[in-house]
C-alpha cells in the first residue's frame, strides 16, 4: 500500500464506493420495482431509489444489510409513485404501444397483469421474498406487520398467481 493512502486492512470495515452498491444490487432493485409499480413506472422508481440511497449512504452502518436497506427505500419510493399515479386523471396503461425504450427488456404482459392485480401487501411481500430474497423478518419491518402476516401475504400472493398465471411453476422448475 502506498504511504500516502489510508492503509486498508482486512479486519477493518471500509464502506465500498457507492458504485459497488449499484453494480451489485441494480438488477435486483429493478426486478423488485417492476413487480411492485409495473414496468411503466419502474425506471423512475429505480432512479429515485438509488439517488435517495446515494444521499443517505455515508450514514449507513458499514455492517448493514445493503439489500434490505435498498428494498426499504424502494418500498417508500414505490408508494409515492403509486399515489402520484392514482392522482393522475387518466391512468396510462402499460401497453405494447409504450415507447421502444420501455420495452427493451422483454416482459410478459400476462405476468404484469397477474402481479398487478394482487393486493399491494401481497405484491410487495412476493417481490421482497421471491425477487429480493429477503427473509420474512426483514419484510415484516418493511411492511410494518408481524412476521407471520408477512409470510401469509407472500403465500396468499403466490397461491393467487398459481391460479392467474400458471406458468409461474415452470419458472420455478427451471431454477
Amino acid at each position, binding site marked *: 500500500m502506498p504511504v*500516502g493512502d489510508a492503509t486498508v486492512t482486512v479486519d477493518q470495515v471500509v464502506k465500498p464506493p457507492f458504485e459497488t452498491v449499484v453494480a451489485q444490487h441494480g438488477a435486483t432493485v429493478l*426486478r423488485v420495482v417492476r413487480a411492485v409499480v409495473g414496468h411503466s413506472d419502474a425506471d423512475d422508481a429505480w432512479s429515485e431509489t438509488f439517488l435517495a440511497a446515494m444521499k443517505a449512504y455515508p450514514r449507513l452502518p458499514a455492517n448493514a444489510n445493503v439489500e434490505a436497506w435498498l428494498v426499504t427505500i424502494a418500498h417508500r419510493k414505490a408508494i409515492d409513485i403509486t399515489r402520484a399515479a392514482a392522482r393522475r386523471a387518466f391512468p396510462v396503461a402499460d401497453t405494447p404501444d409504450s415507447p421502444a425504450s420501455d420495452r427493451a427488456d422483454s416482459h410478459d404482459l400476462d405476468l404484469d397483469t397477474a402481479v398487478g392485480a394482487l393486493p399491494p401487501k401481497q405484491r410487495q411481500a412476493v417481490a421482497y421474498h421471491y425477487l429480493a430474497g429477503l427473509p420474512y423478518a426483514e419484510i415484516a419491518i418493511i411492511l410494518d406487520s408481524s412476521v407471520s402476516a408477512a409470510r401469509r401475504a407472500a403465500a396468499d400472493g403466490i397461491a393467487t398467481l398459481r391460479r392467474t398465471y400458471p406458468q409461474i411453476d415452470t419458472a420455478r422448475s427451471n431454477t
Partner: protein
Amino acid sequence: MTAHSLTPLYPVDPDHLRRLHARLEKDAQDSDLLDIAYRTVDSAVGPLLLAATPRGLVRVAFASEGSDNVLLALSERISPRMLEAPTRLDPIARQLDEYFAGRRQRFDVAVDWTLSHGFRRTVLEHLNTDVAYGTTASYATLARLSGSPKAVRAVGTACATNPTPIVVPCHRVIRSDGAVGSYRGGPAAKRALLALERAG
C-alpha cells in the same frame, strides 16, 4: 417455492441497466451528490484510474496500485458517494491523450489538493509551477524551491505519495547523480515519461 425463485420471470437487459446508470450519474451530479466521479483511460504507461471531486482532479493511479485499493482509500478519506461517471473526467482524459501524443506540455485542469497536506502539498505545488515540461530537477533542488533546503528526504516522500502523478509532474524529479529514482508507477513508467518529454 424458494426465495429468489421468481427472478427468471423478470429478465434484466444490461443495456437497460447502463441507461439507468447514466441517468443516475446525471441526477447525482445535478443534486450535488456526486462527491467523486471516476473512470479508467488507456495510456502509454498502462491503464490510469482518474478520479475527480467537484473541486477538481483528486487522484491519478497506475494499474500497479490496484484500482480497488485506490477506490476504497478514496471512499474512506473523502466520501463513499462515488460513481464511475466519465463526463467529469472528459477534459483531463482528452488532455492526457494529447500529452501522450506529444501535443500538450501543460495540463489545464483544476486540481483538488485534499489528499496532500502541509509540506508535501507545498512541494507538489512548487513542482507543478516551477519544473517545466522536458526539464528535470533533483530532490535537493526541489527542497530548496520549497523553502526547506535540508528536507530532501521529505521531498522524496512528497513525490512518492503524489496523489495526481503525471499531471503534477513528480516524474521530473530525479536523483542528484542522474538516476531516475523511485516512482509511484514504477521506474519504467518514469523513464517512459521522461523520454516522451525529451522527444516532444
